[in-house]
């Protein structure tokens, strides 16, 4: 794989997506939602205005966990099940399928990141103007984590698109994946946890977090915001299990990286054997 075609494909994908109304619409909606949540989160502040940054961010976190996977899946599926004629011309060029996938993924990611970053920036400015810059680094780290989540679901959408090939089928599958990771997985994990007991239960619970990129980002964000204490003793146990909070974040980020790379790598492998 060489860099140059990846770059050119990424740039074209970005141009297409930025000119696409959807990127703008997503940016505006995301910006309004994030800002709104942060804003109303602050209005609802209690009588002494404590925990500003962490709580606002925790509310934003909730939104991020719902919206970003959905948007990434939708945009990825849309792009990767795009017009056949366009794909045929592209893949007939002297490029590898891995280069095409990487390029398109990066271009898409850049466009999603652009809209997300503007949303986060607006909210960030607002939060800082209200409660000062003391949580800024955590907020930046949180933004990076959210971008990571976007990439993971982009990667998953590529796999889905590769497997399903047809647009409608891919969308159905993507929607299922969204539902699964955002909701069903956790319900399942909670259910199984209740069936287990003692140390098996805890081990399962800790490990199950890594099986869902949404949980990975949720837990890592809360640790970064230094609000892992809201998990109470469970949080302490988790941190001890993972080896301290720096180590925990490292492990979680590694898990997120794996989640970002593996589906895409699998998609490349499948696509190599696929016909157009």
């Amino acid at each position: 794989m060489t860099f140059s075609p990846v770059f050119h494909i990424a740039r074209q994908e970005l141009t297409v997506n930025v000119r696409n109304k959807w990127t703008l619409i997503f940016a505006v909606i995301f910006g309004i939602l994030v800002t709104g949540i942060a804003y109303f989160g602050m209005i609802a502040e209690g009588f002494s205005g404590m925990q500003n940054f962490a709580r606002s961010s925790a509310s934003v976190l909730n939104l991020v966990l719902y919206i970003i996977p959905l948007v990434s899946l939708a945009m990825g599926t849309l792009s990767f099940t795009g017009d056949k004629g366009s794909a045929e011309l592209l893949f007939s060029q002297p490029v590898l399928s891995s280069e095409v996938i990487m390029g398109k993924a990066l271009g898409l990611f850049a466009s999603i990141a652009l809209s997300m970053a503007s949303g986060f920036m607006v909210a960030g400015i607002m939060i800082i103007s209200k409660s000062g810059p003391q949580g800024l680094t955590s907020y930046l780290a949180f933004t990076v984590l959210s971008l990571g989540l976007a990439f993971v679901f982009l990667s998953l959408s590529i796999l889905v698109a590769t497997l399903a090939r047809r647009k409608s089928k891919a969308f159905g599958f993507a929607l299922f994946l969204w539902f699964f990771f955002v909701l069903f997985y956790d319900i399942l994990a909670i259910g199984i946890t209740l069936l287990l007991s003692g140390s098996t239960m805890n081990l399962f619970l800790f490990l199950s977090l890594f099986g869902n990129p949404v949980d990975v980002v949720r837990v890592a964000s809360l640790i970064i915001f230094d609000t892992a204490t809201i998990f109470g003793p469970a949080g302490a146990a988790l941190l001890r299990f993972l080896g301290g909070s720096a180590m925990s974040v490292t492990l979680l980020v590694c898990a997120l990286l794996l989640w970002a790379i593996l589906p895409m790598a699998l998609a490349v492998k499948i696509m190599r054997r696929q016909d157009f």
Partner: protein
Amino acid sequence: MRPWSVISAIAVLASGQMESQGISNLQSLISNAQAGETILVPAGEYDGNIIIDKKLILIGLGSPVIRGTGVGSVITVKVDSCVVRGFVVERSGKMLVDEDAGILVKSDYNVIEDNVLQDVLFGVYLFGADNNRVRRNDIRGRKELELGERGSGIHLWNSYDNILDGNDIADVRDGFYIQNASRTHIERNNVRGVRYGLHYMYADSNVFLLNSFTDNVAGAAVMYSRGIRIRNNAFLRNRGFASYGILFQDCHDMIVDSNVVADNNIGLFFEASRNNVFQHNIIARNDAALQMFQNSNGNVFTENNFIDNLSPLLVVGKKTETRWNRNDRGNYWSSYDGYDIDQDGVGDVPMKIQNLFQYLEGKAPHLRLYLYSPASQAFAVAANAFPVMNINTEVDRMPLVKPVDLSKLGILTLLAPSRGNHQKTNDSVPLFAALPGLGIFVIGYLVMKRRSRQ
């Protein structure tokens, strides 16, 4: 007449005299003084350690410094009815087991007031000392030590009927450590940045009034005590993995009213604590407002405001026999979504205090890791949608639809400055901040449109 106000003689030492005698002679001055005399000590530095072995009134003028040897206690009060006022006391010993304190009191009816204690292991230590008054002292522990290696700010052991008020304590292990010390009156103290603001065992019939315990690992741990009155205190921002505003372990027949318990991990924690009454408290923005072991029975909650807590109640075990209302008045819950048709101020629909997720958390505490996950919210909704899944045994049948007006809580006036700061912030600022962002979007869009028309 109170014993500590008796002054039988005054020995005024001119500063010139003191200097000629050298600065290490405070102890010899004490030895030469008659019992009942008052010694005015001018500003300067004096060597410790000092032992007060006759009834004396020691008054520092201009904050004279008494510096200990670094071994034992800097000032030891051995006889009754002494006064130590206005000194800077520093450099005590290092031994926890030897009660190495700034001021060690082993007698009764003394007054320890307006002193600054710094670089000390314990601040003021009442060792088998009754009827003393410790007030308006500033106590700073040894910040460089690990929490566990420090001593307490004010330590009471086997001491009764003392009054502790107006002290300001930080950087020690426990703000107050009170063991076997009944009938203590604790008022208007301020404790922050310590392990337990208040560590409290085997001490009955005490009164807490207008104290604030902030930014500690735990606000107060109250254990094995009866008949305590906790009123008008603030327990704020006590955070950590196992932190709480107040922990009650085996405490009975207390009255806890008009306190503010906010922004703690767990607001109030109960284990084997029964028959306590909680009234007119503000319990707000805690991760969990209440955590109760099922062996905590017969506690009564009435007319409290539960506001914006992530979880109102975690029950460890099956259920508690808690009474959530008294005299037809329950509590205000900010998460209550019922209605009040008859306009009597009491909601017509009972308040189910726990949702399904919180209930499950009681069974498997580590499930809390799923807090903030959409699944946990789904559980909460599901329990409402499908009554079959309704597990609620903790129900407030008389929920109040409006918060109880507690704006006149004494503690709120003490907290006023920090409150004002936050409420003053201009609400329109965020909107102004959002405008340029939206502007960027619109301009970007227009630019793009324009280019496409070329």
